[in-house]
């Protein structure tokens, strides 16, 4: 079977009903076992503006939302004006000719116009154009009408038989019209006979929390992290999770710390601005040695920035969050299913090492959607709560209980409040082994040093637990593309394109950021291939970090900071430009105006 690869773009204004056809298509694809990647480019408004939803499907895993659009559904003139010039030969544009006029299209672009007035005379409301466009699209990609019939029956079940009948009639008209007027795509939409699931990254993070046994979740709404809160709130009763929206992010993290200290697995999520407010408390979790997980879903900054646009711009903020040195774990999941798997893994680590854990996601991952094989969604994950007195047999050593006993690993057994006989006070001030403040003795440099070293020793233990990054792709390569977090998919798609053009590239995608496997990375990056670092920010935050950890300076940089994620050709073009010696920092131009 030839590789099927179809990309559909639906554009219009906020409020024009783009989500519903988007959902219908996504479900249709995954129910045929096709893979999916969806990305919604939107603006921070409730009505108006420009929204552009891209859905790409294939019978092979889809790595990114791609470079091209095969079918454009233009729901308003604005969408037509912005996108028509990008449509290439062989593609199709669907639009309501009553309201929308096309401009000049490239030869070979099929202009599929229909008239709502003609096909649905007397039917009121704007949404009818969406129904016609959707039914025409299904005809174009060879989906039988009965599939659409089922979808409409389900979709309008609650609105009663009259509404269903009306919509079916409109759909039938659109479907038949498309059959008689438009040229269908040469390959009908395949059916692999399997069924996949799909979800967005925020859902994956929330579900990962549920799998990990999170019992307390709190947040203050902030795009693009609110999806985690919404999922948690919707499933709170079913899963037995106390979910609270509280007054601000300072409260969020402190509440989570309180709950975690009392014995719950506690999690919270925010975006950059909220994370900034949490800084002091994150350090306090490290000082009190309380395990807690915080997700930062990055959006374009600084300050309130661009609330609905993506960026990888918080790396330095997260690494510098809070005063002083303290043990912590920072991890950037590399794809949407990885978001799900990372959360329980991180909880086991923070429980074992009694320190805060931070997940760096971004809008691309968190609000992007992807297909996943349901077999990959294993909720039955190993749970390791670390050394907790009374939980797994950890007992106080002879000589009485000391909450912060100096140990080789840096980990001291904790006793949960309420346990008889192990009373102690945890403190954000520096303290002695038994929790007594060092300042109570008018400070004691020896004790301070011993306690500080005890805490920091945890970092070695954590590093031994996390796997070093590996090279993906050909061992012998001309270029190593280094990325971190969410850019994995697009980099890997770019590698395939480069290979087709005769450029052998491999990829080092870094997931575990702190602690960092500096030695292993140095070994991989000094094999002779040129190193090009790909990141979604202006100043090359990861490049600077890599240099500080390894001393390695990259041969070239591909950076993007316009709020939109990379498309594969941005990386391909950048690699070629850098290899030809033109630029060390290549900044692609984003050609789709979204």
């Amino acid at each position, binding site marked *: 079977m030839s590789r099927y690869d179809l990309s559909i773009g639906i554009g219009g204004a906020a409020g024009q009903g783009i989500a519903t056809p988007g959902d219908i298509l996504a479900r249709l694809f995954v129910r045929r076992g096709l893979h999916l990647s969806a990305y919604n480019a939107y603006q921070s408004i409730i009505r108006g503006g420009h929204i552009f939803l891209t859905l790409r499907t294939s019978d092979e895993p889809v790595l990114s939302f791609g470079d091209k659009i095969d079918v454009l559904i233009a729901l308003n003139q604005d969408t037509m004006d912005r996108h028509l010039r990008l449509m290439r030969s062989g593609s199709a544009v669907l639009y309501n000719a009553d309201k929308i006029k096309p401009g000049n299209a490239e030869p070979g672009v099929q202009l599929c116009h229909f008239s709502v007035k003609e096909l649905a005379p007397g039917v009121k409301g704007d949404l009818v154009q969406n129904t016609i466009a959707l039914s025409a699209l299904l005809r174009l990609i060879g989906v039988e009408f009965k599939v659409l019939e089922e979808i409409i029956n389900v979709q309008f079940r609650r609105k009663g038989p009259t509404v269903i009948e009306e919509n079916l009639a409109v759909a039938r008209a659109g479907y038949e019209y498309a059959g008689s007027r438009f040229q269908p795509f040469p390959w009908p939409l395949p059916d692999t006979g399997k069924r996949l699931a799909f979800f967005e990254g925020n859902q994956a993070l929330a579900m990962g929390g549920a799998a990990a046994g999170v*019992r307390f979740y709190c947040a203050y709404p902030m795009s693009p992290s609110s999806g985690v809160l919404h999922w948690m709130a919707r499933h709170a009763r079913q899963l037995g999770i106390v979910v609270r929206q509280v007054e601000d992010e300072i*409260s969020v993290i402190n509440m989570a710390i*309180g*709950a975690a200290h009392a014995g719950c697995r506690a999690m919270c999520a925010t975006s950059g601005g909220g994370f900034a407010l949490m800084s002091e408390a994150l350090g306090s979790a490290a000082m009190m040695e309380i395990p807690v997980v915080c997700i930062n879903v990055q959006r374009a900054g600084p300050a309130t920035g661009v609330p609905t646009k993506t960026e990888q711009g918080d790396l330095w903020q997260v690494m510098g969050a809070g005063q002083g040195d303290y043990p912590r774990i920072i991890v950037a999941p590399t794809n949407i299913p990885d978001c799900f798997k990372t959360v329980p893994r991180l909880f086991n680590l923070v429980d074992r090492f009694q320190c805060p854990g931070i997940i760096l996601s971004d809008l691309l991952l968190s609000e992007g959607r992807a297909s996943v094989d349901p077999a990959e969604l294993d909720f039955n994950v190993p749970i390791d709560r670390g050394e907790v007195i009374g939980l797994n047999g950890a007992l106080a050593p002879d000589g009485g209980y000391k909450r912060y006993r100096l140990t080789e690993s840096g980990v001291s057994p904790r006793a949960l409040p309420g346990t008889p006989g192990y009373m102690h006070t945890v403190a954000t001030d520096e303290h002695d082994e038994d929790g007594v403040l060092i300042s109570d003795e008018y400070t004691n440099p020896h004790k301070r040093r011993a306690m500080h070293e005890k805490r920091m020793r945890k970092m070695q233990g954590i590093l031994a637990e996390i796997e070093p990054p590996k090279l993906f792709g050909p061992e012998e390569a001309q270029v190593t593309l280094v990325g971190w977090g969410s850019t994995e998919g697009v980099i890997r798609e770019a590698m395939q394109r480069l290979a087709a053009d005769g450029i052998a590239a491999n990829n080092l995608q870094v997931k575990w950021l702190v602690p960092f496997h500096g030695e292993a990375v140095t070994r991989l990056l000094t094999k002779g291939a040129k190193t090009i670092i790909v990141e979604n920010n202006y100043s090359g935050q990861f490049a600077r970090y890599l240099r500080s950890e390894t001393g390695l300076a990259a041969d070239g940089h591909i950076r993007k900071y316009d709020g939109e994620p990379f498309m594969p050709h941005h990386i391909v073009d950048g690699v070629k430009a850098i290899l030809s010696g033109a630029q060390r920092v290549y900044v692609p131009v984003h050609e789709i105006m979204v």
Partner: protein
Amino acid sequence: MSVSPTEGRREARPAGAGAAARTTVKDLKGRVEPDWCPGCGDFGVLSALKQAIVELGLQPHEVMVISGIGCSSNLPGFINTYGMHTLHGRALAVATGAQLANHELKIVVTGGDGDGYGIGGNHFLHTMRRNVDLTYIVMNNQIYGLTTGQVSPTSVKGMKTKSTPEGSIENPINPIPLAIAAGATYVARGYTGQVKHLVELIKGGIRHRGFALIDAFSPCVTFNHDNTHDFFKQRTVKLEDRGHDPTNFAAAMEQGYRWGDEIPIGLFWKREDIPSLDELEPVLAEGGPLARRPLGVPPDVARSLIRDLM
């Protein structure tokens, strides 16, 4: 002593299965001696709190004392219960999380006026409107002690401090009417020179199901030369001696605003018909404290979650 009996809907539970010995004040002695200046009002709160725990028959491990940062906030280190000495202003947020995670713990939050009404003001407001089941004792010395004597949100207008050498030009916060208006369901004021009276107020607060504020005048003998023990000794009058009815909203507000030759202490306001946050939280209604529930998602629930995604 005529502080009206404050029977909560759920009595303080007797010690663990009745087997443990009765707690004594000695059992509650912390690992270190308080480092407060001799004569600091905070000593009065520490001894009143210990006495209240003893009289309520609570075991040390059943109580968690949580504070922010300040002289007064050092208190958890001086008492042998579970304790948290958190960040400046954040104790109430931490305490809310701990309370929801284990609603069987008795949570007592202690701190200063700067900590609670200044930097922690937002949390103060929201913890009250949520009616979180905890007892909040503010050692109100109308100054910043630990940072060596700057103006505080409760310093009276005109007070000269290191940061207001010309005298403060801002109006002080009056925590009593503020708390009543914000939804606190037990609002009292004590004075550390009247420890027995304070013990009763604290006991009432711990027994009370819901948010209990006890604003305690706790003179800073080192930095506040205006609001001294003498100042309060001459002025404090007990509400119960004046026949105050703590269920009368208008009277509670009126008494709360009094400040002059007579400054009332005692129980201003109390409501028992408002459920606390944990009582309203449906997830807590069954299955015991969150902190003790088993982790993981049951297989049938996991299956239905996955089905929803297909």
